[in-house]
């Protein structure tokens, strides 16, 4: 392991205090579970002078239900999320996703907000300082070029969070806390298709909570990811599928992906499938649709064509499983 550089650690007790410290200290970063962030700090990818630890803020650690929605605090741990009876019964893909993140010890520390804000990943980026320096860095960090697509002007680092696709299929919204107060937006608008700057958050904003409407509570869903090992690995490709059926016809379907783009992606044109019979043909239709829209690049050691192939196979498999349950 690389050594930990010096920084000042802050432990605010409230969102307001956290925002205030952030405003006052330039060159600062929020950290929640730290399971990914601290690795990046040790590697010199992030070099903060101030680290603002959000783990002491009690107000963001609750899962609560009111008449219209389920509210998940951004500081809820992945372990709590995976074990929540409400999540397991009403939003099963989210529980699947939480349980599939890294290893069980990471899940004790990692948080919902942290996983949604996970930095994009690339083989040429998630390396030591010596390594990146020896490779002239890259456009995502201190360098000029992209080693994945030399000559290109875009960064293709892959979004690799597991929760986002599972929440996207339930039309989740996020409440954002900032110096100018609170704003709420659709989860998909938290992201943009840019590996260098994939979050639409301002640097002094933080996610307070995630909101899931009761309208879709209980709508059947599943999440699965392809990975080489059954633990630890980030998704090579992951898919969440939510399917409602009636008389073996598709009543409602939403599919979202991770690991194959710089942002978690909702598959387009699934509404065209509504009303179709569920059979091998429609299953294949979904598979091909997913394969067409997924755009993995060489950001991992595993071949991009394989990841595209597999993400289609996963979506098809999940749709099939949901259709026979």
């Amino acid at each position, binding site marked *: 392991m690389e050594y930990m550089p010096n920084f000042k650690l802050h432990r605010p007790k409230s969102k307001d205090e956290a925002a205030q410290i952030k405003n006052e200290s330039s060159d600062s970063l929020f950290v929640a579970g730290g399971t990914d962030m601290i690795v990046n700090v040790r590697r010199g990818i992030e070099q903060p002078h101030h680290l603002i630890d959000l783990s002491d803020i009690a107000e963001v650690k609750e899962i609560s239900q009111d008449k219209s929605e389920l509210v998940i605090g951004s500081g809820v741990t992945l372990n709590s999320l995976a074990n929540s009876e409400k999540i397991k019964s009403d939003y099963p893909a989210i529980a699947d996703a939480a349980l599939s993140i890294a290893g069980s010890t990471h899940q004790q520390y990692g948080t919902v907000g942290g996983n949604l804000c996970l930095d994009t990943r690339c083989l040429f980026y*998630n390396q030591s300082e010596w390594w990146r320096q020896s490779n002239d860095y890259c456009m995502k960090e201190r360098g000029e070029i992209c080693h994945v697509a030399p000559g290109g002007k875009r960064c293709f680092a892959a979004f690799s969070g597991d929760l986002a696709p599972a929440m996207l299929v339930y039309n989740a919204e996020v409440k954002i806390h900032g110096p100018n107060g609170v704003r709420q937006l659709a989860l998909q608008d938290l992201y943009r298709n840019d590996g260098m700057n994939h979050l639409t958050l301002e640097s002094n904003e933080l996610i307070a909570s995630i909101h899931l409407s009761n309208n879709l509570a209980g709508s059947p869903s599943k999440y699965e990811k392809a990975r080489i*090992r059954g633990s*630890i690995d980030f998704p090579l490709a992951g898919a969440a599928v939510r399917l409602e059926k009636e008389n073996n016809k598709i009543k409602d379907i939403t599919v979202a992906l991770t690991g194959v783009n710089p942002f978690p992606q909702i598959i387009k044109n699934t509404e065209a499938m509504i009303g179709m019979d569920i059979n091998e043909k429609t299953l294949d239709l979904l598979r091909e649709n997913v394969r067409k829209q997924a755009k993995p690049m060489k950001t991992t*050691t595993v071949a991009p064509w*394989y990841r595209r192939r597999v993400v289609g196979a996963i979506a098809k498999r999940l749709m099939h499983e949901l259709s026979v349950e």
Partner: protein
Amino acid sequence: MNEIKPTSSIGIPKPLVDGPEKVTGKARYSADFIPSDCLVGRIFRSPVSHAEIMEVDISDALSLPGVKAVITGEETDEPYGVLPIARFEYPMARDKVRYKGEPVACVAAVDVETAQKAIDLIKFKYKELPAYYTSQDAMAEGAVNLHDHRPGNVERDVDFDLGDTDNGLTEADLIMEEKYNCAEIAQVQSEPHAAIAEYDSTREFLTVHASTQVPYYGHKMLAKVLKMKESQIRMIKPFVGGGFGCRTECLNIELICALVARAAKGTVRIVASREETFITHRGRPETDVEMKIGVKNDGTITAVDFKAIQRGGAYSGYGVVTILYSGGLMFGLYDLPAVRYRGLRILTNTPPPGAMRGHGITDVRYAFENLLDKVANKLGVDPIEIRRKNLLEGPKYETLNEMFINSYGLPECLDWVEEKSGWKSRKGNLGPNRGLGIACAHYPSGASKPVNWTGEPHATIHLKLDWDASITVLTGAPEIGQGSTTMATQCAAEVLGLDMSRFQSLTSDSKLTPKDNGSYSSRVTYMVGNASIDAAKNLKNILIEAAARKLEVKPEDIECLGEVYRAGSQDEGLSFPEVVQAALEGTGTITVKGNFDTLPESWGTKKYRGGAISGSMAYAYAAQVVEVSVDPDTAEITVEKVWAAQDVGKALNPLAVEGQIEGSVWMGMGQAISEGTKYVNGLGITNNMLDYRVPTIIESPPIDVGIIESVDPHGPFGAKEAGETSLVAFIPALTNAIADAVGVRPLDLPVTSDHLLELMENYKTREAAE
């Protein structure tokens, strides 16, 4: 009255004697030694793959406050290396750098941040040279030589033809051949490399703690490189978190640490990051194998003709031995009437590989067993039967390269896996995408000729007996988690008939324990075990004589029952402490010694140059059946079950043997399906535990271990190798099972899902076309 009996320790499952320290966290590993005033050492590593060094300007780094020393390749002009015939590596590069990450300079400073700042101030000026990352590129016409004395970048060219291979191929009814590429892999042991060097400038005395499997070789190299007398150095190996061959030679980190400690006139600690541990490497080389087997219609092998090319990295390390093992160890498993081998060890601009678990044989055995399976399918012979057809014939088990084989449990291993896996009824009847595969392997129990041939015993053990009637086992055998200290204790306890609780142990401290060559090539149980038996017998003789004196009888009348020595069954006898008292009267504390030497008959063949490599006192044998399922959509491979039988001669500690065999399966599984280092322009891109994918416990299949005991006539209580053979067998058994499951045969390693899916899709396309 209860019958008094000696206590037995052999063949009984025993927890490891150093287990409690490990599980309670009390065990101290090299990085845990942080003496007061300890400086932090950090290494400046080359950012380029191949270059002439123009200048290493350390002036700014030296003048930074808090920096105590900065050293470069100028610090020593003495090269090091494990093989006396191939010592041309320097602790820090001198004239040239030859791989990305090669040490160029080292800083010792008061803390890690200062050390890093100093590293950033070093100005490295160089002139780049063409770099070669594959064996083919390095061997190509006109390639620049990495080392002037290795023209064509060939480190070693091995060529032998024993028997009449051309004739054997002519007589064959069927000849099959395939080409295999086996990726370079690394050990990924849990403890990254670490060293602490304390230089006492008043006495000019150096003490080094290091995470090593070979403290003795380290000791010698420290003396050579620092130009000190060996007597001025104390080498200590504390607890070590695994080795698997990556620490089977002295590493640059130990040498650099000592050099910079001397320069700083103090104590320096260097703890390598995981990435630096990958760069230090000494894993298994990338190997290209061309394998050809000729058989009769009944499956009898008439000849084997094969070639191996190893990407040897920038320096030799164990390279010459590896490429020789790859040839010599083709013998000894089956009865082969003719074998031709060409082996090329090539120098490339990548980190140097080493002697990884399953040293030399793994990749060529993989190719052979994979191809033999294909041959069996082609002939319509059962894959187990084709192996039975080619067994060595006892009792002399002669091989063309004159191996010394006195025990051969392979037939029993085959019987065991065949029965336990339900092979006869289940093979071919598992349904789609599920299959069974078999493969066999063997491995030596230590090299009969040591690296440094000075005529000294192969192993020495001291047993110290004191007035407290306890026995201390003093052994230089490096305990690296494999259980060597437990094994040495068991052997001594068994001979003396005492419970193991009478024993304590001190290991691997050059000032206290006898010299030992180290933990590698599966030598320790065989050699150190025999030395321990010898020492215990010597001690027992002393105790018997003392008891005889005390009881006023002849020594031959004394019966040793462990805790009681008596002159006859009616005699109450003397308790062990009383015998000890009698033995120490007049002489004081006793230390006895036991030795082991190999027999000249086991020193290998003189039929070709390097034929001594693969000579051993005994060979362990394994047969393995693997059951897999393959997801037809994603080509994800699940190892459903493994039946692993290994002939270990005698399981001295069945618990430890089982652990070794299970560990072998896991490690083999990594190489087979997910592990492989990757480089981008010589820069290791998988040098961390996320991108270099070692299987986790989730991937661990149920493993049925079958211990076969052929009782080797020269082994300690009949024991042989237990820690490497089963790794070798797993890999081909797995690919053979995949071929059985999906109809396509993977050749290259690792069989990753993307690679397999491609094979499966091509196969489908081909089938559709036909």
